[in-house]
């Protein structure tokens, strides 16, 4: 036995080595892939966003540069003002900064983190520098505009003074000219012209003209100076010189004009004005003077340019930081890709090495296996020798086995005896469905004697191959381990119906050492038990019917008539909707009266109709329904007898009242009317039935409707009023289905969620009965009615016409009928029923608030129907007798 073990060992070795190599290969690949994935993720999630952030930051810095340039290049407050809002740049900087910081922290690189920290500080520095620059530029512009205004004032004053000087000069010139004219006419001497005061004055005026114009020009020039140096030079030299010159010329002129008071006054005026203008222009002690303002502007400009430099430096630093971050990120990216490349290379060499190793191991194992096969051949020879020896030993053993078998047969026979004595059928079945030997006698009685090895399903269902197949499949499922055993067991058939008996099947597993070896199938006869149960249920149904009859015989009778009518509608309905509606109502009503078989029949037909909404009832179903109704009717008659249905109900109180009247020997008519009252039925009952129908309908339509009933103690002739009650159902349906809106609509219209329907019956006093059906729904849509009426050529001018139209058969405003109502026949039938009683029916409706349907039946109709209605209906003979006797009384 050494060689096979060696083969096995070699194969295991080979397999082991192969598996080992494979595992190592897979592991290596996994490691490589993971590492590369990590690097890639690092690149994607950290480095790339960092680069994007840096690009964003650089963009923001570029915008900051642009803003700084824009702010610096503005020329006035008005230009600067729109730039006050720098939220965009702030947002961009802050965003880039925050995003970068978070990404840098993620990157986990110390150098990057440090960079981020310095960058934060730099951004703050930049923002504050920018704000300072803005403020400084603002001040510059404001100073500049002050300066321009002041300069303008000085300018215009000087211009005015120039005009005055010209005037003075013109006057001096005129004096000269007049002098010259006098010379021309010989009135004056040339000497006077040459050395006289007139000429000197004229020249002085001309000098003044020149000096003041030069001064004005210099003042105007201040506005064009570019820096403080030029201004300094002007203030130090030209301006004071020009000023002094003007003052000097003015002084000279003043001296020369003392003889001419008019001119002297003008010159003095000019002196004062010029002094003022001069001060306004050049006085450096006055902060508002032209020169001071100019200086302030320059100083502020220098300040602004310093801040601007700071701004630029900070932005540069920010840029350097951003670049640093970028280059560091690049470095990391490069490192990552280098790592990935190295790893790929390593993985490549590793796989090659493993492959070579695998080939080597295979070669080695191949040689070992060839060696083992040679050993195996030798071993084989030894084995055939051993076999021959074994056969000899076996012959002795067979004799012993035969002896044991005869003992076992004896024991089996005694077990069969036990089985045969039990009443139940017991069948032992092998896992493949074959019958095993053990089974009780009852099995033979019920299923006949099966041939050996018969399959259990063929035994149980000899003439039903379909069921046999079902059983077989269930059995196979039970035997396979697909489902939990208990679940599979549940799905086995549990009963068999034979022609005369009902058999119950039970299954019990037989296990040996936990393994299922066979099943024990127990068959029980439960026919008697089933019969008892059915009898009990029928008895309960009869009890229910009886209870209903006893409770309200008149109602029950009406109910029966109604059932007949509904059945007629269901079987001969005009359309699927009507059929369904009638069928459904029939089902509900049958359930109310406890007619369970009719209910079940309706339910079954409904189920069949359920699939196809356009289908009418099949002829077969119609027959079934009618026969079910007939059966129910006859059953009811059989149970309670016609007499029960036409009973008169008189309470003790009623009787006592009559006896009291008789005792008091009251008037015959009074007594008669009191007794006559017995013939009538309290309206409370039919109203309660209607209310129950309304509630049922509401819950079916998913509406919340509170139904209130006020019967007013009124009694009416049950037979005469039966058609009215029946048709009143239509009004109820209309109110619940069309009148009362769905809860959401009601809420939207500001009404309580729960609708309200009131059924009120009262005696109007003169014996007239008034029955009101009031809902708080949406009212009748008169416009829709008008449209429908017009379409049918009916009168539709007034509201009364429209209300009339509502009562016409077949006029419906609904485009689609629901299964509850909507064909437009109901109200017409109701009016018909009313008019048969001599009554009227009116509808009043308020859009959005509700509808009231009001029926008035005059007393004459009540009196009349005692005889008329009776003969019209179908009274059983016994009932006719009782009504006759009451008429006699």
């Amino acid at each position, binding site marked *: 036995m050494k060689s096979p073990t060696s083969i096995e060992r070699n194969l295991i070795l080979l397999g082991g080595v192969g598996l080992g190599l494979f595992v190592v290969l897979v592991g290596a690949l996994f490691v490589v892939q993971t590492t590369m994935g990590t690097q890639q993720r690092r690149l994607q999630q950290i480095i790339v966003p960092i680069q994007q952030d840096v690009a964003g930051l650089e963009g923001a810095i570029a915008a900051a540069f642009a803003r700084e340039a824009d702010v610096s290049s503005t020329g006035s407050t008005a230009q600067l003002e729109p730039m006050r809002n720098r939220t965009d740049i702030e947002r961009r900087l802050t965003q880039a900064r925050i995003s970068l910081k978070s990404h840098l922290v993620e990157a986990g690189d110390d150098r990057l983190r440090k960079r981020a920290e310095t960058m934060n500080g730099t951004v703050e520095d930049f923002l504050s520098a920018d704000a300072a620059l803005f403020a400084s530029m603002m001040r510059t512009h404001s100073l500049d505009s002050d300066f321009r205004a002041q300069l303008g004032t000085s300018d215009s004053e000087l211009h005015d003074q120039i005009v005055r000087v010209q005037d003075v000069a*013109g006057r001096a010139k005129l004096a000269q000219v007049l002098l010259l004219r006098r010379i021309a006419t010989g009135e004056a001497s040339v000497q006077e012209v040459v050395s006289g005061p007139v000429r000197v004055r004229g020249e002085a005026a001309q000098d003044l003209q020149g000096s003041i114009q030069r001064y004005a020009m210099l003042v105007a020039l201040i506005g064009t100076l570019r820096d403080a140096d030029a201004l300094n030079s002007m203030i130090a030299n030209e301006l004071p010189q020009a000023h002094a010159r003007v003052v000097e010329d003015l002084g000279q002129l003043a001296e020369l004009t003392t003889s001419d008071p008019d001119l002297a006054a003008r010159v003095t005026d000019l002196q004062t004005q010029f002094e003022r203008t001069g001060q306004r222009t050049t006085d450096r002690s006055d902060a508002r003077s032209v020169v001071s303002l100019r200086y302030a502007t320059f100083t502020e400009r220098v300040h602004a340019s310093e801040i601007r430099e700071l701004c630029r430096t900070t932005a540069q630093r920010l840029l350097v930081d951003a670049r640093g971050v970028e280059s560091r990120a690049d470095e990391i990216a490069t490192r990552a890709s280098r790592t990935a490349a190295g790893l790929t290379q390593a993985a490549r060499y590793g796989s090659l090495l493993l492959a070579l190793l695998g080939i080597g191991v295979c070669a080695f194992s191949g040689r070992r296996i060839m060696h083992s096969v040679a050993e195996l051949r030798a071993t084989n020879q030894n084995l055939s020798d051993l076999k021959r020896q074994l056969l000899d030993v076996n012959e002795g053993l067979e004799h012993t086995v035969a002896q044991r078998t005869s003992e076992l047969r004896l024991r089996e026979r005694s077990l069969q005896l036990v089985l045969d004595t039990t009443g139940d059928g017991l069948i032992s079945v092998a896992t493949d469905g074959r019958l095993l030997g053990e089974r009780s006698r009852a099995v033979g009685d019920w299923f006949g004697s099966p041939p050996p090895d018969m399959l259990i399903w063929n035994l149980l269902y000899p003439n039903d191959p379909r069921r046999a197949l079902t059983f077989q499949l269930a059995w196979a499922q039970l035997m396979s381990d697909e489902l939990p055993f208990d679940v599979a067991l549940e799905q086995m058939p549990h009963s068999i119906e034979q022609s005369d008996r009902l058999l119950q099947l039970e299954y019990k597993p037989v296990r040996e050492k936990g393994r299922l070896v066979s099943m024990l199938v127990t068959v029980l006869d439960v026919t008697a038990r089933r019969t008892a149960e059915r009898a009990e249920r029928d008895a309960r149904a009869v009890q229910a019917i009886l209870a209903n009859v006893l409770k309200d015989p008149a109602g029950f009778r009406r109910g029966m008539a109604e059932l007949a009518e509904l059945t007629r509608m269901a079987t001969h309905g005009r359309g699927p909707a009507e059929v369904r509606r009638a069928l459904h109502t029939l089902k509900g009503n049958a359930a109310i009266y406890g007619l369970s078989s009719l209910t079940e029949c309706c339910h079954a037909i409904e189920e069949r109709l359920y699939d196809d909404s356009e289908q009418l009832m099949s002829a077969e179903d119609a027959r079934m329904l009618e026969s079910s109704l007939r059966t129910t009717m006859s059953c009811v008659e059989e149970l309670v007898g016609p007499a029960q249905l036409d009973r008169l109900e008189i309470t003790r109180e009623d009787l006592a009242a009559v006896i009291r009247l008789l005792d008091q020997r009251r008037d015959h008519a009074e007594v008669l009317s009191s007794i006559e009252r017995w013939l009538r039925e309290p309206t409370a009952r039919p109203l309660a039935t209607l209310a129950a129908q309304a509630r049922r309908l509401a819950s079916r339509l998913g509406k919340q409707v509170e139904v209130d009933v006020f019967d007013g103690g009124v009694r009416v002739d049950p037979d005469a009023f039966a058609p009215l009650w029946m048709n009143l159902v239509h009004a109820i349906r209309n109110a619940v289905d069309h009148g009362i809106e769905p809860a959401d609509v009601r809420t939207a219209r500001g009404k309580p969620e729960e609708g309200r329907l009131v059924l009120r019956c009262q005696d109007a006093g003169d014996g007239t009965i008034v029955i009101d059906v009031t809902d708080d729904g949406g009212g009748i849509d008169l416009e829709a009615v008008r449209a429908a009426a017009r379409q049918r050529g009916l009168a539709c001018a007034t509201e009364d016409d429209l209300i009339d139209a509502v009562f016409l058969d077949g006029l419906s405003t609904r485009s689609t009928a629901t299964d509850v109502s909507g064909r437009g026949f109901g109200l017409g039938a109701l009016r018909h029923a009313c008019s048969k009683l001599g009554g009227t029916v009116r509808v009043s409706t308020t859009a959005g608030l509700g509808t009231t349907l009001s029926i008035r039946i005059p007393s004459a109709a009540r009196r009349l129907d005692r005889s008329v209605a009776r003969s019209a209906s179908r009274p059983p003979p016994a009932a006719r007798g009782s009504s006759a006797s009451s008429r006699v009384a």
Partner: protein
Amino acid sequence: MTRLATHREWGPPDGASDASRITRRSVLQGAVGAVLLHSSRARAEVQPAAVEPIVVGMSTALSGPARALGTAMMRGVQAYLDVANAQGGIAGRPLRLEALDDAYEPARCSENVRRLIDQSHVFAIVGNVGTPTAAVTVPIANEKKVPFFGPFTGAGLLRKTPPDRYVVNFRASYAQETAEMVRGLVSDLRVSPERIAFFTQDDAYGDSGYSGATQALRAVGFDRPERLPHGRYPRNTSDVEGGLARILDPRVSPAAVIMVGAYSPCAKFIKLARRYGLRAVFANVSFVGSEALAAELGPAGEGVVVTQVVPHYDSDLPVVREYRAALLAEDVGFVSLEGFIVARAFVQVMRRAGAKADRESFIDVLESGEGFDLGLDAPRALSRDVHQFSNRVWPTYIRGGRFVPMRSWGDLAGGK
């Protein structure tokens, strides 16, 4: 109430039917007013508002040295508008004048004109006074496409070739006036062109008169008119001495001084010149303001010439008769007569354009080439190339403190 009027259809400017319509409407409005307001006072207030008036604007000198001109012009314009409104306005729509004071200052004038156009929505600017103020008004009128009608100025900048579409003149230009002076002096009075001197206001007004005269001098064969003595004075001052010195220079002996200026400095100039012995003809253009000049000069005004662009207010022309009937005796003068004629010309064009006319159709009617009878002489037709109603100049001179029309410049020699 206002709604009532705006829904009304405007008929043709037919006097009789229009009048009856107004009456009917007034009755109707009266009834409605009475019903709505139950008050006759309220009804009286309601009636004028019922018809939307046509508003014309004016920015003129109602204060300052030139206020006499502005006031007289405004009275003349208002007088004719009253006449026109009494005749039913423009097919029932009354005319209303809105006049603002600019004190003869261009800056204020520009502000006024913009306010009149943008806030008061005037149909046209009518009868402004002054050349520097006109210089700022013309660009606004062109920009806003609002007619600038009959301004009291003869400056060349309102008389471009071709004319600005929205600028319409009534009067002859300063150049035409000074040309008439040159013609009269040289041809009628036989004054040598070399002995003509100028005294002008130092601005566009003065320039336009001066250049008209120099052109006229060239036309009569005098080739160096710019070498003639020319004294100037600054606007809104009376500093005439310097200018006077130029003209009194003993090297020249002017026989005539053509003056283009305002009445106050001109009067001062004439008085001083006469005092210092200058014996010359002083000829002023119409803009000087004849009555104010005469008043200022007093006895020194005898023989001073003022050329007019309207006929004499005592003449027997139809429009002058109408004018005399419309104005109080103390308001009668050349300036108010010009205002009156300007307003008459405006109403004539407006009536032809109709009550629903807009500014464009107004100008279109004006340029249609059909004549307008201003009650002067022959009807005058305007066109795309002619935007001036009158080219005539009527010379007058002061005799006994009053202006008398001059039949010929020779009258002066005779009078002396």
